[in-house]
């Protein structure tokens, strides 16, 4: 049997997804189900002075209008990042429904519950609210509190090596510019939704989340329940991208409403409410300054800037992480400050930090290449470090140069003529750009349960998540190889707190975290199976130890003699059992402390720019990645091109506009917040080096986020190559491109 790992297998849940039978949170119908619709604030800061709920309460079908006046008392949440040992997932400390205070425009302030959705929506419009509004701080330049966070995702907020500013002054060739990225929103097509039902003091919740155990912890905390009295299920999630990584308000609001009306409640956020109540990616303003000697070796690297956070939770968008690991430089200065704003707390969005960070850093590298009159691929090759540039540790795996060369070859980089505007396609300008991709390797604690049956099938369980990555498929492939079974004999169950514990599906950590737990559970299962055979007369396994046997063809066999073995059925039948199972709980070791563990890649973009209209079309895009061993070539490619697609949106289209006077998001819908559509995206290509990482489970890295990193810079660099215009503020709109001046023709 050839290994399943690495094969481009179809998704195991594909049939459910194409037939409409894959069920998402809002699709669980319970007896007596009522519908909740939230009311949101229309001021950014202040307090509610009065609710007029009389008309809403009189409206047909209305069961309750829940406001701070009649809401059950909840305890404060424990926000994300407030504990390293507990699965905390609170996204905002705002005492929603517990006080009259308002902390951002669009904050939930009431829930209307009615028998049908239309009744609840109609009645929600009848709630009248008056406010005592206070001035709010709403932009990166406002008077909000500015501070340096204690830690940035467990790392030091500032890194200083040598004299970066002095080296910049002295550098033979240099660049020094500021780049900005706007707020982005995730826009998973499934809006945030919860169905909540109480059974006495026990709570069951179907929630759209990337972290069932986090939502369980949050609900248990708020309602003062034991963890075992709360069950959270999310077998399918309609896209997450970080936007469902924490416990957002829909879950506890639905549970609150259900408690008030004594019936199960479904609460689905409207699309505008997803923008209003779920944080997006913070805007960033970043300075990148690079100096080099005449030979193109970096002499200094500066990457500093400001991002925003909120008054009700601190979130730090770690934009300078790529600069900590990508390039060798004797002088480095990396720093970040936050400004606290009266906004919905920003949160993780695909490649948080690394995504906007690579836009600035990789645009800067392109500007340095122009100043050096050096090919930008060659510049990157010349600055590849032999150990981690800021930590000094060896790399667990670094095939960055290989990825860069692979991408350049597949893309046909050699055809590029360096001068801006030198390549044309009829009246259109042709531009070719490159940028590095970068994402860290994260691993988290995880557990798993494995069961094999006499029929030769296996069930593998872990309360992890599926929101498009192909989790069940990849883990079934991994388990099948470990168990010596064909993939179609292995079933993988996920998305339920009744299953073994898993952390958030975030930080591209899930595949290897769960793989480690599955591997350990399978090892424990071998011991359990062998215990049934090792003392049995007539068993070829009699007297053997676990190290002497291996899973083979639906059973166990001597490692040194595959023919001397027994099937699961034979072992279990003799023992009078139908199945045997084992569990394991696994934590990462200290490898991440001793080694620099990162994924790398190179993004290559070819654009066509209309010189008269400033419109940019993507002609071709190639990503090449160094991500260890790939588990499923089909779903991996989808992850890469999906990340690239979101990156193309970031480059050319995406921006959440907040009215700086009121705090209202003015384009909170899918027509005015433009995400890429079919017509924006050409055929995309993704390649990978494929060398396994000797220090990760399965030799793999997570791949969900690296695909988006570097994309916006590759596009901006291609636009520069086409036009000679350097756009440092995203998105690259036609008006920005038409009004920009041509720079440094050479």
């Amino acid at each position, binding site marked *: 049997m050839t290994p399943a790992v690495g094969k481009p297998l*179809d*998704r195991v*849940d*594909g*049939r459910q*997804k*194409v*037939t*409409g*039978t*894959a069920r*998402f949170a*809002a699709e669980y*119908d319970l007896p007596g189900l009522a519908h909740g619709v939230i009311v949101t604030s229309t001021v950014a800061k202040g307090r509610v002075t009065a609710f007029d709920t009389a*008309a809403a309460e009189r*409206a047909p*079908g209305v069961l309750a209008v829940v406001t701070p006046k009649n809401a059950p008392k909840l305890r404060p949440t424990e926000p994300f990042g407030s504990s390293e040992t507990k699965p905390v997932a609170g996204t905002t400390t705002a005492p929603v429904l517990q006080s009259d205070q308002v902390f951002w425009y669009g904050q939930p302030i009431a829930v209307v519950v009615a028998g*049908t*959705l*239309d009744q609840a929506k*109609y009645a929600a*419009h009848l709630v009248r609210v008056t406010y005592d509004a206070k001035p709010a701080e709403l932009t990166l330049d406002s008077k909000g509190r500015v501070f340096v966070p204690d830690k940035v995702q467990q790392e030091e907020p500032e890194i200083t090596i040598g004299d970066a500013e002095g080296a910049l002054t002295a550098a033979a060739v240099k660049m020094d510019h500021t780049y900005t990225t706007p707020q982005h929103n*995730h826009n*998973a*097509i*499934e*809006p945030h939704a919860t169905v909540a039902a109480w059974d006495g003091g026990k709570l069951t919740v179907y929630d759209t989340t990337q972290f069932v155990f986090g939502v369980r912890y949050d609900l248990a905390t708020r309602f003062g329940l034991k963890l075992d009295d709360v069950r959270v299920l999310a077998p*399918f*999630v*309609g*896209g*997450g*991208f970080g936007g469902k990584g924490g416990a957002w308000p829909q879950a506890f609001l639905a549970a609150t409403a259900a408690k008030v009306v004594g019936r199960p409640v479904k609460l689905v956020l409207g*699309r505008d409410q997803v923008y209003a109540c779920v944080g997006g990616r913070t805007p960033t303003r970043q300075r990148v300054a690079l100096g080099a000697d005449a030979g193109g070796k970096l002499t200094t690297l500066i990457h500093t800037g400001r991002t925003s956070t909120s008054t009700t939770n601190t979130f730090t968008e770690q934009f300078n992480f790529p600069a900590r690991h990508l390039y060798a430089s004797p002088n480095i200065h990396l720093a970040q400050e936050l400004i606290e704003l009266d906004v919905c707390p920003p949160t993780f969005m695909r490649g948080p930090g690394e995504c906007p960070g690579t836009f600035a850093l990789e645009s800067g590298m392109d500007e340095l290449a122009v100043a050096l009159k050096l090919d930008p691929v060659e510049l990157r090759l010349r600055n590849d470090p032999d150990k981690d540039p800021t930590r000094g540790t060896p790399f667990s795996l670094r095939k960055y140069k290989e990825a860069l060369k692979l991408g350049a070859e597949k893309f046909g980089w050699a055809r590029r003529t360096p001068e801006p505007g030198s390549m044309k396609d009829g009246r259109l300008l042709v531009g070719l750009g490159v940028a590095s991709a970068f994402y860290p390797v994260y691993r988290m604690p995880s557990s798993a349960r494995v069961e094999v049956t006499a029929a030769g099938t296996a069930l593998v369980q872990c309360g992890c998540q*599926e*929101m*498009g990555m*192909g989790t069940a498929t990849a883990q079934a492939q991994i388990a099948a190889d470990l168990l010596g079974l064909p993939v179609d004999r292995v079933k993988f169950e996920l998305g339920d707190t009744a299953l073994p514990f898993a952390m958030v599906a975030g930080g591209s950590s899930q595949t290897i975290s769960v793989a480690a737990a599955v591997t350990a559970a399978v090892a424990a299962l071998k011991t359990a199976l062998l215990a049934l055979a090792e003392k049995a007369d007539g068993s070829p396994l009699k007297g053997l130890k676990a190290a002497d046997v291996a899973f083979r063809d639906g059973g166990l066999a001597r490692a040194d003699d595959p023919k001397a073995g027994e099937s699961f059925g034979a072992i279990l039948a003799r023992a009078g059992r139908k199945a045997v199972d084992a569990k394991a709980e696994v934590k990462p070791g200290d490898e991440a402390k001793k080694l620099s563990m990162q994924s790398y890649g190179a993004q290559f973009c070819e654009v066509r720019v209309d010189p008269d209209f400033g419109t940019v079309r993507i002609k071709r895009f190639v990503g090449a990645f160094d991500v260890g061993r790939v588990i499923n070539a*089909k*779903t991996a*490619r*989808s992850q890469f*091109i*999906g990340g*690239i*697609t*979101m990156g193309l949106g970031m480059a050319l289209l995406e921006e959440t506009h907040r009215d700086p006077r009121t705090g209202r998001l003015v384009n909170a*819908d*899918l*027509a005015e917040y*433009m*995400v*890429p*559509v*079919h*017509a*924006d*995206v*050409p*055929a995309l290509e993704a390649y990978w080096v494929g060398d396994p990482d000797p220090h990760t489970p399965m030799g793999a890295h997570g791949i969900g986020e690296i695909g988006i990193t570097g994309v916006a810079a590759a596009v901006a660099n291609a636009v520069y190559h086409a036009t000679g215009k350097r756009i440092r503020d995203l998105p690259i709109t036609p008006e920005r491109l038409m009004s920009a001046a041509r720079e440094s023709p050479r």
Partner: protein
Amino acid sequence: MPPDPDPDRRDFIQGVAAGGLGVALLSTAGPGVAAADPPTGPGRAIPVQLTVNGQDHALTLDPRISLLDALREVLHLTGTKKGCDHGQCGACTVLVDGRRVNACLTLAASVAGSPVRTVEGLATGDDLHPLQAAFIKHDAFQCGYCTPGQLCSAVGLLKEAHATTDDEVREQMSGNLCRCGAYPNVVAAVQEVRLAARDAR
């Protein structure tokens, strides 16, 4: 962004505007509208006969209910998805009289007597529709939430037979957003089925 590539949708919106605008306005009464009950009264149910995937359903519906909510909340046919409720994402695309429409912009009462086909009605027993099979083969989805809409839209697109090149398929599928970014795989799946059908003729 390209202009709306979906002539059917425009046609349909005009149809609704001509036929059912009064009801549509009532259903969107917002904060700026007087709080008094609209003339027909919210929640005053009306009889509606819906034909979905070949099955007749004699329903009593709130006149405000969209076809999307009628499918999901009343008939419990949850394969059709709600992404925006504003006709902007295409996740709710279904086929009415064989033409693709956004079920969220369609009042349920306005399609009484017209056959409605949803993702649940694409396969024949256990035999997947060729597009469903091609979507699996080409990994034309990730999370699967936009997939029913992409599939119904692709069924409509192939019937319209206006798209031949990849760019034409892209243009005419642009009303269906996929945030996971499976677009190139959707195009590959649609083209494979289109070419197979052409070769079979």
